[in-house]
């Protein structure tokens, strides 16, 4: 079984039961290099392994940039 999430507004198929931490590993993103949100809610780093993604979830990743 697979689910479809929206990753930065783009559909992406994933195996059912995949966690947010596993998604980051799949994307080859270092856990400390990004901040994460699911359905508009911040998910702290330590909560990612226990955050199972569901069909239709909207996932966003954020990284540091320069700013004013």
């Amino acid at each position, binding site marked *: 079984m697979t689910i479809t999430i929206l990753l930065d507004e783009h559909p992406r198929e994933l195996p059912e039961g995949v966690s947010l931490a596993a998604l980051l590993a799949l994307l080859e993103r270092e856990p400390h290099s990004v901040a994460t949100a699911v359905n508009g809610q911040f998910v702290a780093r330590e909560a990612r392994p226990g955050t199972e993604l569901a069909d239709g979830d909207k996932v966003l990743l954020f*990284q540091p940039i*320069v700013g004013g």
Partner: protein
Amino acid sequence: MTDSFEIAGVPLASRFLLGSAGYPSPQLLAEAVKASETQLLTVGLKRSVQKTGDNGFVAMALAAARAQGARLLPNTAGCRSAAEAVQLACMARELYDTAWIKLEVTGDEHTLQPDPFELLAAASELVKLGFTVLPYCTDDLVLCRRLLDAGCAVLMPWGAPIGSGQGLLNPWALRTLRERLPEAVLIVDAGLGAPSHAAQAMELGYDAVLLNSAVAQARDPVRMAHAFRDAVRAGRQAWLAGVMPAQDFAVPSTPVSGHAFVLS
């Protein structure tokens, strides 16, 4: 002589807060940070699925801040609602390991004017979550009072729209804020284009200024960082010394009595 000020009990030796965006190169960013002698450097966040390179700008900004003991001040640029801003602030706290946040909630796309209602809602929530909130706000006195009541550590009213370089468009409003909120830490944020604008803000009794584009977009950002640093100091000294009141009539400065020369 150190003339520091405090934000949430933390002393800052420099009254010149600097942004890290828009520099021609990472090296010039680092040199400008050093020249400014800033103790507070703003940074941001962006959405990104794939790891995207930035030519080393972020790494250089972090290194430059670390080299001179400056704190980082992440912002919530791009947010349009309180809910968005609160979530982004939480992400910034995790990524940058600081609870200080420059709170931005935009209400108008053309002027990038802060939305006062969403700003206040976000500030209230973030204070409850333990953040030290530095709100980018308009110069509306009542809004500023409400932000202080909500627990904001400082107020950062605009001088002019972000990146416009127009200077202080409403000195009366800024002066009124200073007069009506004498205990508040006030920082003019945004719209400063020339060092004279920064000096003017400091002469009004503001505690500090925050700017980015005026330095980053200068032909020589490092020299401009020096210029702003000196202007901030000059303006501060003028405030402490007491600027003479302007008058509509001439007052002779040479203490002659009657006519200096009698030719007939």
